[in-house]
């Protein structure tokens, strides 16, 4: 059983018993005027206090106001009931007790609304009050034979009378009245002081009660004060006091529970208020203009901020209390308010709950709005277009993208069917099928399609995502750049494969032309190679779409005024459109003849030198995309690389072939020399010796001597030739005695006079000396064979860390370094040392062979 229930069970019946007893005593009184009415008033007064006290105690168990109200009620029943008795003693006791309720009432007033006394002054006043009300009659009664001046109406005699001493009676009355009035004044002053120092919220609670209590006390005071002046007045004020007192407990109760009355409005009003006004509304509802609303922030840690965003601590300080706002254990905020509001917990809780709902609602709303803002920003930042389309093909929404890559054209319209869009039907069917597949599988599907023009190929990618039971989103992105790069990579890969497989050059050129046309979307592409004269160029590769006109492969024509010429001159990509101002007459005519509307060309360079150009064309009315010529340029740089590789490979192969040929030739020469020279002679010697042996066996003669002499000669020749051969294979003089003696030896054996100048004083590295020796050796051999010269000058010198060898003859000239293996082999030898061989041989003006060989 709860405390409240026990209270009701204990107090209720007791009040009924005491009340009924009181009612009977008063109602049956012989000395009271209108006893029935008085019984009713007493019952109503006591009953109202007890009832209000029970309700207050039930609703505010922690508050003592209820107990005090009950105490007033009971003492009221007791004193009024006893005073209804016609017997002397009960009547006198009742009279003695009649002021007790006033003591409880004063206690109530001073302790209201908490039921607890706050200060020592209040406690002193309350204690003094109880003493006063308890003692006043005991001070008066012993000297007053008729304390209520009712002897003539038949009221009982004073049972406590000691002495009918008028002087004592007058003095006691005066003392009691003075003390009582002074006391009431002190109580009133205290209450006024409290009122003055109260917050608005506290005043709101105090106002009705203080009014009622004060007026009641005033009536008591008047009642007490008028007692000795006029019975009528006293009687009237007693009645008035009685009637007023019936209502007093309800005023206390109303004040105590007043917070509840506003409850019904709170949620509605708060919910309708904008966030910024919630604090104002809270102040209004709590009647506390100082109340502040703090918002809880959960991240990163729990902190509180006020309406201006300043951090605040939700802690109570003297005079200020805090009511936390929570929802399901989650802190949402706090209200910092006047301490007085602690006495209205229901009001605080109700306001806190309503504000909590509001804050939570706001939070969710903010979170949703923030999420929407983020999503919207995200969508706007994406370079994509987003379509929302039903399964049936109706366009529900189009989100246009912003930014440079949003170039995929929008052909669909919101509210219309995609099938009505001016897009090729097969593409629409394919995309819708992809969208339906996304809907049916629930998975992301993708599709790619091209949408550009010839010469300006573009691609788009659609990502299809289900967005409802019968609708899907299509996120469309321009993927042209990526596709172009893929195409270029694939094209270059194919070219590289062809180059690596050592396909014929012409085939590689044609392949390059086709791949470039594919990448650019061109109608024709040509690769042209400049002729050495710089005037003409020849088409070495080409590709064209069926029906397009093009200059055929192998065609050689003047470059005058052409795009190839502009490319060769500037070394940069060029672009020409039919109708361009400043178009050369030759190019204008060519474009008309071949129905070319747009043309781009870019240089092909080989080892930084112009090698040729690529030219791509489009027929009317098409035009190449912006920067197509640059893309062509990027492409041709890679072609150049492939060509350089190809040429390097060819040069390497040729160089190796020459080396092999030269080696073979050398071996053949050696073999021939051996066969023709030393071998023949040794054979002869061998035969001669065998013959001499045969003759000696027969009979020696002068013939034998002659034969032996010849054999000896042959042996001498053979040895000489072997020495020559050995010298040809490697000059022993060079190794043993250096470049000077070796060159002198060459000069001595030369067919024409040779003058050697500038022999270096010091030895050079072996390979440099050997290379220089062979340059001179080969040059002198050539002079002997072809030059018809009368003299040769060999000059040696140093230049920039290079050894320089120059052989100059005054012969017929016309030597061709590209012909004959001798100079080629020499060039290979010099170049293998990072050197450089230069042959200058104008017809009729002699030949100069100059070699520069790096040497330390």
């Amino acid at each position, binding site marked *: 059983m709860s405390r409240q229930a026990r209270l009701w069970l204990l107090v209720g019946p007791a009040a009924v018993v005491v009340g009924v007893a009181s009612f009977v005593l008063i109602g049956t009184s012989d000395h009271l005027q209108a006893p029935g009415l008085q019984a009713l008033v007493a019952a109503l007064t006591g009953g109202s206090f007890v009832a209000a006290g029970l309700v207050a105690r039930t609703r505010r168990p922690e508050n003592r106001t209820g107990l005090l109200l009950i105490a007033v009620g009971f003492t009221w029943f007791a004193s009024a009931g006893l005073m209804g008795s016609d017997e002397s003693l009960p009547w006198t006791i009742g009279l003695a007790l009649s002021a007790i309720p006033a003591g409880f009432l004063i206690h109530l007033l001073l302790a209201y609304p908490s039921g607890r006394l706050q200060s020592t002054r209040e406690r002193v006043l309350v204690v003094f009050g109880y003493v006063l009300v308890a003692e006043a009659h005991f001070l008066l009664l012993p000297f007053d034979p008729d304390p209520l001046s009712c002897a003539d109406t038949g009221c009982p005699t004073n049972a406590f009378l000691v002495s009918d001493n008028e002087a004592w009676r007058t003095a006691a009355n005066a003392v009691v009245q003075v003390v009582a009035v002074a006391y009431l004044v002190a109580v009133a002053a205290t209450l006024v002081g409290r009122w003055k120092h109260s917050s608005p919220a506290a005043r709101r609670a105090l106002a009705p009660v203080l009014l009622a209590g004060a007026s009641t006390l005033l009536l008591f005071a008047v009642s007490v004060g008028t007692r000795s002046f006029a019975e009528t007045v006293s009687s009237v004020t007693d009645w008035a006091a009685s009637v007023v007192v019936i209502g007093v407990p309800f005023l206390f109760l109303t004040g105590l529970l007043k917070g509840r009355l506003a409850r019904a409005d709170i949620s509605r009003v708060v919910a309708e208020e904008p966030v910024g006004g919630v604090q104002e509304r809270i102040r209004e509802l709590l009647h506390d203009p100082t109340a502040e609303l703090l918002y809880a922030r959960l991240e990163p840690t729990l902190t509180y901020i006020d309406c201006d965003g300043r951090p605040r601590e939700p802690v109570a300080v003297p005079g200020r209390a805090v009511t936390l706002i929570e929802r399901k254990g989650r802190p949402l905020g706090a209200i910092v308010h006047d301490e007085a509001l602690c006495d209205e917990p229901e009001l605080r809780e109700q306001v806190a709950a309503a504000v909590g709902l509001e804050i939570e609602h706001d939070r969710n709303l903010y979170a949703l709005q923030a999420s929407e803002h983020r999503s919207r920003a995200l969508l706007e930042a994406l370079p994509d277009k987003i379509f929302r389309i039903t399964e049936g093909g109706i366009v529900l929404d189009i989100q246009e993208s912003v930014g440079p890559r949003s170039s995929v054209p929008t052909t669909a319209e919101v509210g219309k069917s995609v099938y009505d869009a001016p897009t090729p039907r097969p593409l629409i069917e394919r995309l819708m099928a992809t969208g339906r597949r996304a809907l049916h599988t629930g998975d992301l599907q993708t599709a790619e399609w091209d949408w550009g023009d010839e010469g300006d190929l573009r691609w788009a990618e659609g990502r299809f995502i289900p967005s409802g039971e019968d609708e899907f989103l299509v996120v469309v992105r321009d993927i042209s750049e990526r596709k172009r790069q893929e195409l270029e990579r694939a094209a270059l890969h194919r070219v590289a494969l062809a180059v690596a497989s050592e396909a014929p050059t012409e085939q590689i050129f044609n392949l390059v032309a086709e791949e470039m046309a594919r990448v650019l979307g061109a109608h024709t592409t040509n690769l042209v190679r400049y002729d050495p004269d710089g005037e003409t160029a020849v088409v070495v590769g080409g590709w064209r779409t069926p029906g397009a006109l093009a200059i055929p492969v192998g065609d050689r024509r003047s470059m005058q005024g052409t795009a190839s010429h502009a490319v060769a001159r500037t070394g940069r990509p060029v672009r020409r459109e039919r109708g361009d101002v400043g178009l050369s007459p030759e190019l204008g005519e060519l474009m008309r003849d071949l129905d070319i509307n747009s043309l781009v060309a870019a240089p092909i360079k080989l080892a930084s030198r112009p090698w040729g150009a690529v030219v791509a064309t489009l027929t009317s009315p098409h035009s190449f995309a912006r920067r197509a010529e640059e893309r062509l340029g990027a492409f041709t740089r890679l072609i150049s690389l492939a060509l350089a590789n190809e040429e390097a490979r060819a040069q390497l192969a040729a160089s190796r072939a020459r080396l092999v040929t030269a080696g073979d030739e050398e071996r053949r020469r050696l073999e021939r020399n051996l*066969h*023709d020279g030393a*071998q*023949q*002679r040794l*054979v*002869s010697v*061998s*035969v*001669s010796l*065998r*013959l001499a042996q*045969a*003759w000696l066996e027969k009979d020696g003669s002068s013939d034998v001597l002659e*034969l032996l002499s010849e054999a000896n000669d*042959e042996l001498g020749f053979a040895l000489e030739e072997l020495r020559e051969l050995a010298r040809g294979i490697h000059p022993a003089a060079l190794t043993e005695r250096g470049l000077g003696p070796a060159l002198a030896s060459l000069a001595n054996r030369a067919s024409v006079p040779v003058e050697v100048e500038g022999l270096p004083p010091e030895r050079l590295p072996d390979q440099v000396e050997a290379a220089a020796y062979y340059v001179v050796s080969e040059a002198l051999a050539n002079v002997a064979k072809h030059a018809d010269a009368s003299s040769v000058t060999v000059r040696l010198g140093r230049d920039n860390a290079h050894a320089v060898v120059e052989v100059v003859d005054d012969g017929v000239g016309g030597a061709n370094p590209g012909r004959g293996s001798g100079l080629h082999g020499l060039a290979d030898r010099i170049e293998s040392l990072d050197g450089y061989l230069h042959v200058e041989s104008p017809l009729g003006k002699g030949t100069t062979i100059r070699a520069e060989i790096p040497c330390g």
Partner: protein
Amino acid sequence: MQSFLVVDDHPSFRKTARVLLESEGFQVVGEAADGASAIEAAKTLRPDVVLLDIILPDIDGFEVAARLITNGNPPAIVLTSSHDARDFGRLIHESGARGFISKAELSASRLRALLE
């Protein structure tokens, strides 16, 4: 006494061969330094035997042999070279010559063995 025509582009060998043949009782009726003059000399001199070097400046010894054999009453042909017989393989056998003697091994006895 058998008559010889010596065909070789090296004068020293022709001289040595002549000394060898004549010392062994053969008659050297002429010498030739290349294929064309050899054929011509064979027509005019009508030697019994042609000592024929295989490597000649113009046409080689096999060709010379083939042309000599196509004429009526051809001479006996003995091929020679400073190379080994193995260098020429089947060509010697198919040439219609009596045989091959390397120059270093040339002697009267080897010649007689081939010509008998």
